């Protein structure tokens, strides 16, 4: 191919990647609306404790703070992984994604431990309207994190075995958008569920 044809080819590839990333962005926006409805449910029901404990009695802020720092740091390492991927540095990309995965897995483990503890103490989703909406909102976020971790695992294994092929950077970009988005949702859960809960609003 001549240099001109190569240029056209690269421009076409870039265009396709942009379109795919925009499509994924639109999906993320609809996911935003999903979380918006769950936040609305929680806002309406958080006072309906059915005589049971409220958020102020149940939530342990230092524990939640550690979870938050883990997820925030994983969002940063995910960004650094993407910088390495755009440089084409396979080794650095894999290392940063492995670190992101470990931070995300630590976050998920802490969350599941918290859920199990609440359920064992009799504060399951069946106990009150407040707990139903709490488990639905925070659980849906946890489910997204689980899917994100599985996706990350598969992409990193693929990258490790095949190296950078045509669509690798595009796929990793989508994953990183998803991961940053989950971090943003968590900031709102941290503020409006846990911090506001401690204020007995």
């Amino acid at each position, binding site marked *: 191919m001549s240099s001109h044809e190569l240029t056209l080819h690269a421009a076409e590839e870039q265009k396709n990647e942009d379109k795919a990333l925009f499509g994924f962005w639109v999906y993320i926006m609809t996911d935003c609306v999903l979380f918006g409805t769950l936040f609305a449910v929680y806002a309406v029901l958080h006072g309906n404790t059915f005589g049971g404990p409220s958020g102020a009695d149940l939530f342990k802020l230092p524990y939640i703070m550690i979870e938050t720092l883990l997820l925030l740091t994983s969002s940063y390492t995910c960004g650094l992984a993407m910088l390495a991927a755009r440089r084409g540095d396979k080794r650095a990309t894999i290392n940063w994604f492995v670190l992101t995965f470990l931070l995300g897995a630590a976050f998920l483990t802490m969350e599941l431990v918290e859920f199990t503890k609440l359920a064992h103490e009799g504060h399951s989703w069946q106990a009150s309207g407040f707990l139903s909406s709490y488990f639905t909102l925070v659980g849906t976020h946890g489910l997204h994190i689980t899917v994100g971790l599985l996706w990350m695992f598969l992409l990193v294994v693929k990258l490790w075995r095949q190296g950078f092929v045509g669509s690798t950077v595009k796929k990793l970009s989508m994953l990183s958008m998803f991961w940053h988005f989950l971090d943003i949702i968590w*900031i709102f859960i941290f503020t409006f569920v846990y911090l506001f809960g401690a204020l007995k609003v």
Partner: protein
Amino acid sequence: MSKSPANTTAEHETGHKDHGTFRTYTIGFILSIYLTLMAYYMTVHHSLSRNGLVASLAMMAVVQLAVQLLFFLHLGQENKPRWNLITFSFALLVVIVVVFGSLWIMNNLDYNMHSTKDINKYLNSQDGF
């Protein structure tokens, strides 16, 4: 991405500069950590009155949203027409309508949540709902 002449030209033509750098990610990370720790500290130490805390915590969450959108998701740094920004604005509008609309409606259904005595009185006087 390899820096072959073809790729460089393509990047130049589409004008791609929305991937961020080590510096922008680090600034975003430091700001996020700062805002999170500050919100946590203010809540734990009851630094303000209850209403003051509610207002400042909500504000810090919105600032952090802006920080992460700008530094991690590079929103608004694309070429025109800014479809990412447009779809984001619309999603934000829908979320605001859903959340504040629900609260507004449910707060005005308050008579549903009064004591059984009140509800019976209401049902008797109104001949049902």
